[in-house]
């Protein structure tokens, strides 16, 4: 339980901070799609005994390439390509995960297993939190300018595509690390819900980031306690608590 709490804090920090940029860059849908698209990678890694991080990374790459290829087909729109590719990959992952031959426990890939978090998971969670704490402030002004007005930012001598690529790389890393604790279906909650809630209550970036991390921490720890005392599933309780905060923030902002 203490380890789960620590993992919660680490992921809440990362999700709360990174989520602000994802929301500002309107990448919420992309986040959800990538999270679901990497499921087959995780499942195959589990089945053949490879590290989950590696499997997830391969799964992400496959999803990204498939979306890029599908988006180029005539008669396929961009969001259509994302929807079709992600559903296909996710379905494939579920078929593999839920077949009778699959070892028990593989369902944890879908819903996470924050109570069974390993030392390696904690270490990776800490690495992610530290990397974001360093990289996001360094990139801050470029992220801000490119998200504000992409065209003008290139007139400012910036290459917004590079900045966006950096953000997507951070997103991929965060997904790979957080997906193991939160599960494939629920990881989006920790990346998007706190930042979306924060965006509803303030239009200052500093305040938004502070609020987002605070929301993420309270949602994660609150959900974890709830699951402990009410004997509900941990990941789902956390996602539920985060969603409740988002709804509360929306209500307050009106």
């Amino acid at each position, binding site marked *: 339980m203490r380890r789960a709490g620590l993992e919660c804090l680490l992921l809440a920090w990362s999700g709360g901070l990174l989520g602000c940029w994802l929301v*500002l860059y309107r990448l919420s849908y992309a986040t959800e799609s990538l999270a679901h698209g990497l499921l087959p990678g995780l499942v195959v890694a589990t089945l053949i005994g490879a590290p989950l991080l590696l499997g997830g990374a391969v799964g992400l790459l496959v999803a990204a390439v498939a979306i890029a290829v599908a988006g180029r087909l005539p008669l396929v729109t961009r969001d259509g390509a994302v929807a079709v590719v992600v559903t296909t990959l996710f379905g494939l992952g579920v078929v593999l995960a839920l077949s009778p031959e699959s070892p028990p426990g593989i369902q944890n890939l879908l819903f996470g297993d924050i109570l069974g978090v390993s030392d390696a998971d904690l270490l990776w969670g800490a690495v992610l939190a530290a990397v974001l704490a360093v990289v996001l*402030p*360094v990139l*801050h*002004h*470029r992220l*801000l*300018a490119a*998200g*504000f*007005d992409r*065209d*003008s*930012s*290139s*007139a*400012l*001598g*910036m290459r917004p595509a590079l900045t966006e690529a950096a953000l997507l790389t951070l997103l991929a890393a965060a997904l790979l690390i957080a997906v193991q604790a939160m599960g494939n279906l629920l990881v989006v909650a920790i990346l998007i819900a706190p930042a979306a809630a924060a*965006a509803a209550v*303030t*239009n*200052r*970036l500093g305040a*938004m980031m502070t609020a987002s991390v605070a929301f993420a921490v309270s949602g994660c720890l609150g959900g974890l306690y709830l699951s402990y005392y009410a004997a509900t599933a941990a990941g789902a309780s956390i996602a539920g608590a985060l969603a409740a905060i988002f709804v509360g923030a929306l209500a307050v902002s009106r």
Partner: protein
Amino acid sequence: MTAPGERRRLGRFERSAALVNDLVAGYGGAPVLRDVSFEARRGERLAVLGPNGGGKTTLFKVLLGQLPPLAGVVEVPGRAATVAQTDRSRLDYPVSALDVALMGTLPLRPWWRRPTRAQRRAALSALEHVDLAGRAHEAYGDLSGGQRQRVLIARALVQDADLLLLDEPFTGLDAQSAQRLEALVERLARDGRAVMIATHDLPQARSWDRVLCLNRVQIAFGDPRSVLTTDVLQATYGGDLVQLPDGGQAVLPPHHH
């Protein structure tokens, strides 16, 4: 980093902030703009007239270095900065006026560096220059259209640019804001910058120093009093030009897409 007011002494060395000869520009297919030759001088306001799709934006992209010319010579000895239409930036975005002005310091430092104190001061003094010192910490989205336009001008000033490109800055402004912006544009030119303004307002263009008429080719360039004849305007705007009962002409409001 020099304050916006100081740079004019440096600017005296060279009269020209942009020198363009036989420019051809386009995006891979057929050229969308050709035969363009003009000079933008420091201290002058240059109106750029032309219908939508006439090549104004393309010309600005070339001057900014965003689009390489297909042929011809483009010399911009100093720095060029653009003031985009405010509706291109997002109003729900959590930035203050100062944050936006500070974006102008990005080209002045390596990518891993945060803004220095001097750069912060320069951004504040640029906001002061456009009469927005008191609103530096207000959210950009909460400002009026005219104020947002001036914040974007402050961002261009912070870049230490001697060639300012304003893309239809008067669109959507009320009379008072437009007047204020007009006065600011005059001051920017007087400070020793070349200011190029894309506009559809003929009387305004007539009151400035130079005019460049584009309609996929250069129709005319020079002193607006001699250049803006009915024939030139007809060639520039075609059917969008209307004759007013008082003998003047006006351009039909362009259809924005």
